[in-house]
């Protein structure tokens, strides 16, 4: 079998070591005058899922783009398994077995599902030509697991439904043996059944020891899936909490006001309720 072997696959399974899987330290990202991420530090352990919440423009996606290499951090450090990592572009991130499902899906609309699955990591024959047969066969295999109804393997992705496109984006992230998975609104385009499928997939991936960052607007999903919830407000981390320690109202309060439960005044609470 000519399945792509990423460097990460040959490494032994991560034992519970002292150093976290991912550690982002004092990360700052600015666009012109806008400080999108301010001095954020965050840790992710293997098998852990951190839910990133916050309203639009809180810096969740920007922070994750730094980890994916889509937009490198201005200052700050990223450590993978305790080792400093240089992530300057998406290629670097993939070398560290970081895979990303972007909110926009990042699919080439004019190319078919196998072409998108293997974009940038094509399977080739001995003389370096594209091996479309193997790529289609591998895509059929993984799609059968993710979405058994998927049958449009030869059509340009633009002709597919939102759910099918989402399935391709998810398949692409998990096929290459990710150790660290960044999911930006992975169920935004999906119906209830498909969302449930993705949730069970996420649990399965966690059980395999993959560390996951989940960016989501859906507070219930986040409570359901997260080991810890990280609330961001105007580029800063308000708090990182365990779902068992807070109520969803308290998390909502932190999202909207940017303050921990103890810091919120009665007046502000009354305003919220109104």
């Amino acid at each position: 079998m000519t399945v792509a072997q990423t460097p990460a696959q040959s490494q032994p399974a991560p034992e519970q070591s002292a150093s976290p899987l991912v550690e982002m330290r004092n990360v700052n990202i600015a666009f012109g005058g806008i400080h999108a991420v301010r001095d954020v530090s965050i840790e992710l352990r293997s098998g852990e899922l951190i839910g990133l919440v916050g309203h639009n423009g809180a810096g969740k996606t920007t922070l994750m783009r730094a980890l994916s290499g889509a937009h490198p951090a201005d200052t700050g450090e990223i450590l993978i398994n305790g080792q400093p990592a240089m992530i300057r572009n998406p290629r670097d991130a993939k070398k560290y077995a970081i895979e990303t499902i972007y909110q926009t899906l990042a699919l080439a609309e004019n190319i078919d599902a196998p072409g998108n699955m293997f974009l940038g990591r094509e399977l080739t024959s001995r003389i370096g030509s594209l091996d479309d047969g193997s790529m289609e066969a591998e895509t059929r295999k993984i799609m059968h697991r993710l979405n058994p109804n998927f049958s449009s393997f030869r059509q340009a992705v633009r002709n597919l439904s939102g759910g099918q496109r989402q399935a391709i984006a998810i398949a692409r992230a998990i096929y290459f043996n990710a150790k660290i998975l960044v999911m930006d609104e992975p169920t935004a385009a999906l119906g209830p059944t498909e969302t449930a499928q993705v949730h069970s997939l996420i649990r399965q991936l966690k059980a395999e020891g993959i560390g996951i960052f989940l960016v989501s607007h859906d507070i219930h999903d986040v409570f359901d899936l997260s080991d810890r919830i990280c609330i961001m407000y105007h580029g800063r981390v308000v708090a990182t909490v365990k779902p068992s320690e807070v109520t969803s109202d308290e998390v909502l309060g932190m999202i909207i006001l940017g303050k921990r439960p103890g810091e919120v005044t009665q007046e502000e609470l009354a305003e919220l309720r109104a």
Partner: protein
Amino acid sequence: MTNAAEAAPTTGQGHGSTRRSIRGLFGQTEIDLRLFGMLVALAIILITFHIISGGKLIQPANMLTMAVQACGIAILATGMVLIIVSRNIDLSVGSLVGLISMSYAILMTDWFPHILGIGVDVPFQWLLALGLGIGIGVAVGALQGFIIAYIGVPSFIVTLGGLLSIRGVIWYQSQGAAVTGLDPTFQLIGGGALGSVGELFTWAIAIVGCLAIIGLLYNSRRQRIRYGFPTRPRWAEVLLAAIGSIALLGIAWFANNNFWPKGLAAQYAANHDITPPPGGLLIPTGFPYPVIMLIGVTIVMSWLATRRRFGRYVYAYGGNPDAAELAGINTRWTLMKTFMLMGVLSAFAAAIAAARLNGSTLDIGTSYELYVIAAAVVGGTSFAGGIGTIPGAVIGAFVMQSLSYGLCYIGVNSPGQNVVAGVVLILAVGFDTWNRRRGGGKT
């Protein structure tokens, strides 16, 4: 092939069904409808002019001349497809063709004999000239491509600058003079009676082509069966192989019905002590060399576009630049390579132009860029990016050339030809846009 039918689930589907519409049968052959439509359009154009001209247009001599005239534009159009697909444009091709063409002329008339001491008798100097021409093309393409891809200046601006400045460089190259007198072997690249491969090679090429068609069809069927993918019904495979082979052999037969001019044949007979038969000696020309060059370029470019990572990345970038970048593709290098490739193709087109003229003038290649863009666009390339095929662009070049050749043949002057070419360009793209929209964005 016996277990092929068993493994192919779709094979028997059409038989019991009452909905065996022509469209359905057509779909089973998986022929590219757009490409097929363009071939039909080409045939209609030629037949129309054939009738208007009183049944004189479609004969081997005319068709081969037309093909040779289309070759330069068609070769360049294969590269322009990739540039337009990746959301750029190259306006400098005409000037680059002129620069390389003048370089060939100066190399062979001045540098080779006077500086390098290579006389007329030295063989393979045509190859040396061609190699240097390709080098110039790649260098210019790399420079423009670098400015576009790495510095981020829009390709329209960079290549517009190229169009102007390179044309100026040509003047300095030759001090404003036309340069003539190329190596006799190099002149064969331009076609004509001597610049053709002859009867035997023409048949050989056609037969190799037939075998290649059958081999490709068989190989693709075997691949699909190996992975358990649906296959075409067997009648469709046989039909495709038959149509392809008959078309190839027919074209070869047609080309072999073009003969050397009487004077040239008589001279040949005299030189070789042959007594000419009563009607004069008939020597078939077969395919001209530029046509062979075009066939080679089309095959290699199609292979690059569809079978190699480079081509996949070009199309991915055209479809969604962000997706290509996020997938970890080195998009800048990919874009730069498309312009370098255009440089290589410019060297081929320049060789044909210079060889046909037996030299070079200051204005060779002028407004080529516009005909090349027109050919690519008529051939189905979209400025929105991500859409376009190499064979489509080649047929597009032939459609445009057949129009101007046909008009010229029935006595319409050059301004009239331009009017028609412009109107047809707009109509073709308008029809294509309407057709795509009606099809709900399906390709």
